């Protein structure tokens, strides 16, 4: 773990990984769209609206996956002062928020024809909405301090507190009465979903994961560059102060 704490080593590693992640994203997206739009049957109850599932469910998985990773990174950042962990959490947040937004909107678009309502304030939907606000709150908090270190620290604490929401989302459909259907893939006794529908689901989940890895690598690279810009600007500022004394001396 600590071997990757070195930004220079990370930059080399990410340059190596990025083409593979980007390639996997393109191939899996094409495959996933083919499976989900053409080569899977309509549901016997829900008809063609079942195709919304191939976006909705992987996006929901990603919203939890990204948040969990950010919380792990936050713990590493707080405990070991791992500089890249902080940057990873900051870089991943907008992607996680994006997936959560997609999950909420597609869920609404699926709920309208199938449940007869765009939104209900039940446990599952509300807890996912809270997850979305946790992402937004983290992004606002991290950028709210003049000192980025303090912002990161506050954001990391928020991420760790918010992790309680993740199991609540996962088990909300079992704990409370809801319109939302219970888990049909990650459940005891294996998936209860037909293979013809499980394949597009898993391929799309793979595509989203590869997309996340590609974009987060680019964003961490951006954060490292921004860190360097900041230290350069600070050293320039202090260098100017040093030159100032010299010119004063020359003037006097």
């Amino acid at each position, binding site marked *: 773990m600590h071997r990757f704490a070195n930004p220079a080593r990370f930059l080399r590693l990410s340059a190596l990984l990025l083409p593979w992640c980007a390639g996997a994203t393109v191939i899996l997206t094409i495959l996933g769209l083919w499976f989900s*739009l053409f080569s899977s049957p*309509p549901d016997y109850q829900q*008809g*063609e*609206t079942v*195709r*919304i599932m191939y*976006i*909705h469910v992987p*996006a929901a998985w990603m919203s939890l996956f990204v948040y969990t990773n950010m919380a792990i990174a936050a713990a590493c950042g707080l405990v070991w002062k791992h500089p890249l962990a902080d940057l990873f959490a900051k870089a991943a947040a*907008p*992607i996680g928020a*994006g997936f959560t*937004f*997609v999950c909420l*909107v*597609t869920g609404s*678009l*699926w709920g*309208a*024809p199938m449940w007869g309502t765009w939104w209900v304030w039940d446990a599952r939907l509300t807890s996912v909405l809270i997850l979305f606000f946790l992402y937004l709150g983290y992004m606002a908090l991290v950028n709210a301090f003049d000192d980025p270190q303090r912002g990161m620290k506050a954001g990391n604490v928020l991420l760790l507190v918010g992790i309680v929401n993740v199991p609540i989302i996962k088990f909300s459909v079992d704990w409370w009465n809801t319109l939302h259907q219970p888990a049909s893939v990650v459940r005891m006794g294996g998936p209860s979903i037909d293979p013809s529908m499980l394949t597009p689901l898993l391929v799309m989940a793979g595509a989203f994961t590869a*997309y996340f890895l590609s*974009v987060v690598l*680019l*964003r961490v*690279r*951006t954060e490292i*560059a*921004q860190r*360097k*810009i900041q230290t*350069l*600007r600070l*050293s*320039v500022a202090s*260098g100017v102060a040093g030159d100032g004394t010299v010119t004063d001396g020359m003037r006097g």
Partner: protein
Amino acid sequence: MTEFLHMGGYATYVWPAYGIATIVLLGLLVATWKGLRNAEATLKALESARPTRRRTRNSSNSTGRKAADQTAGTPAEASEG
């Protein structure tokens, strides 16, 4: 083809779902790409504008060497001006 686009009467729900996902994911990718290009350009500009410390260190080395066998002062003046 029209039947495919029709989505069994649910076209108004299925296509916006795919559209939203495309817009959000592509938008994030473009924003990330632009941010990276901006940051790297700024970093490059800053680094090329401020190699002063490195230059003075190099020139002080070279002045030391050159001062021994060449006319003293000229390289130091060049680096300071």
